[in-house]
């Protein structure tokens, strides 16, 4: 299904290049952005990070000229856009802001179809497009199309914001702190979905965030900015974590860079274990026998559609004849594309030392706590080996570390 999106309905991203882009608010004062040069390759997600006031948002808004650069050139797909009509330019650049930026008096469908309408698409085409995009961001069009933004939760509004940014199929999407206004659980889910969408569509995405973890998780590249939008480092997340260019970057990444690397790894890159399972309604006596035979003390309960519903110890089953329908919602289920970081979060809430993993809702196995800790240990050993042989900041040596080589599998894996 997603393949057809990519082939027929969406166009891929194009290059963006900022050349000596400068913004000065007063002729005397310090420049908010001082001669920024960045090349953003087509189809990549580039994260602009830095402390507040470093000029990252200003730099972003100069790309769609919500802020006019004082000097410098911005090339999109090789064409200088510094002089073309900004209103027309913006219709070809998706723009997603914190909270979604929905227009409150328009229905959700009209909000998503805003740019196509500005481009004078016919009604039928707009409607089809709106439905397609709402599906893509996980909102049922039949249910939500005619609602108003205030009837949606924060996370849903943010989804609509993403759908609107993609509506007219712009090759470039700009995002300004897109997930800053939602709770951590929703945020990580939205991040996962953005990565899924991006792996299908291959747009060029520029995303501003102050959250280094978000940058590491989402970015193909990260641009770390200091005051005045001076580039501290511009590299892949792996390289930045392994070899911060200077003290500023090191401070900004913060401690626990090994832990942060967990955000770069996906659950399906580790081996899953297969503890015994049972279905709701199975006979307890039979289940108990099977579990004991496997040398385990707990069992995973699935429903008729193979969705995990509960993780029970045999003790909890003792008084029942049949496996009962669970009454509580699970917290310890993760998607196979979740990051190890999110998986670890889920595990800490589980009493069984692991998290159940699903693929499109269906149970596929369990990621055990030990699998993750073994992985962390391996990372640490690797890092200390490198420190001995090459010193911490020899960037070439660390850049070709086994960890980074593996990461070529990450981008291709994301497309699968």
């Amino acid at each position, binding site marked *: 299904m997603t393949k057809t999106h990519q082939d027929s309905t969406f166009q891929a991203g194009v290059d963006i290049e900022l050349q000596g882009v400068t913004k000065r608010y007063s002729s005397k004062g310090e420049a908010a952005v001082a001669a920024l040069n960045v090349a953003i390759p087509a189809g990549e997600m580039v994260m602009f990070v830095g402390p507040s006031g470093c000029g990252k948002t200003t730099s972003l808004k100069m790309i769609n000229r919500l802020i006019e650069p004082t000097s410098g050139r911005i090339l999109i797909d090789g064409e200088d856009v510094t002089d073309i009509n900004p209103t027309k330019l913006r219709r070809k650049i998706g723009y997603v802001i914190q909270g979604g930026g929905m227009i*409150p008096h328009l229905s959700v469908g009209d909000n998503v179809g805003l740019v196509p309408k*500005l481009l004078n698409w016919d009604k039928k085409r707009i409607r089809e497009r709106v439905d397609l995009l709402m599906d893509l961001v996980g909102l049922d069009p039949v249910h939500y199309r005619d609602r108003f933004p205030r009837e949606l939760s924060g996370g849903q509004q943010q989804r609509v914001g993403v759908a609107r940014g993609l509506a007219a199929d712009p090759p470039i999407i700009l995002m300004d702190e897109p997930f800053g206004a939602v709770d951590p659980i929703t945020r990580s889910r939205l991040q996962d979905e953005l990565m899924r969408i991006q792996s299908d569509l291959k747009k060029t995405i520029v995303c501003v965030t102050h959250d280094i973890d978000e940058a590491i998780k989402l970015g193909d590249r990260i641009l770390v900015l200091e005051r005045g939008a001076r580039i501290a480092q511009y590299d892949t997340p792996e390289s930045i974590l392994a070899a911060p260019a200077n003290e500023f970057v090191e401070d900004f990444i913060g401690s626990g860079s090994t832990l942060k690397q967990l955000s770069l790894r996906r659950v399906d890159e580790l081996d899953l274990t297969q503890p015994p399972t049972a279905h709701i309604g199975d006979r307890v006596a039979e289940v108990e026998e099977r579990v004991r035979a496997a040398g385990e003390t707990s069992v995973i309960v699935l429903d008729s559609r193979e969705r995990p519903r509960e993780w029970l110890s045999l003790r909890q089953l003792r008084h029942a004849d049949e496996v009962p329908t669970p009454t509580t919602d699970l917290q310890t289920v993760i998607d196979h594309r979740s990051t190890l970081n999110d998986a670890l979060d889920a595990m800490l809430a589980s009493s069984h030392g692991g998290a159940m993993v699903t693929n499109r809702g269906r149970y596929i196995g369990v990621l055990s706590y030990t699998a993750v800790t073994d992985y962390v240990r391996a990372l640490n050993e690797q890092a200390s080996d490198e420190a001995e042989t090459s010193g911490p900041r020899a960037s070439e040596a660390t850049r070709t570390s086994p960890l980074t080589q593996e990461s070529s599998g990450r981008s291709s894996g994301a497309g699968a």
Partner: protein
Amino acid sequence: MDILFRSYQHASLVVQSLVVATIIALLIAMLVSSRPWGSAVANAVSSIGLTLPSLALLGLAVPLVGIGTLPSVMIVIFYATLPILRNAIVGLQNIDEDLLESARGQGMSRRAVLLRVRLPMAWPVIMTGIRVSAQMSMGVAAIAAYALGPGLGGYIFSGLSQIGGANALYYALAGTIGVIIVALIVDLVLVLIARLTTSKGLLV
């Protein structure tokens, strides 16, 4: 049946003046709302305007345009414009900057942002202004009848001119109660219009 005819005249004077006043107020508000000094001037004019006694203004208008319907219409339009103008400016300005920037970021021109984002979002506030204005105009229209204009004000002035006479009180009462009833009916209609013209997305 004279009273029904006069009530109709009164309502008609207010409603027609209200329509003209709304158009004038919206045009001015849209012109000045994005300019800080323009809004300041417009707000000052509307505050000062509302302090002028309507009878005094009538005294100024009659020497210029004579007596009859014309001065009444002019005075009512003048007063009706002020609350609408004031609310329209507030409504157009009190919209989240981030939302407006986001709308521009989608590729809406300034004109499109004004007509398709700011105006609809300000509409509930503007409608409130129109209702306030309608109530005020009812009273102003009654006073404007002093210059022999149309409407229920005629009864009130008949009553005043015959003070002590047998029917003076009845005249004044007929005029006053008539104005109140017409005002209530017009307000009800305006509430209905506001309900029908405001997006459900803006109702709280």
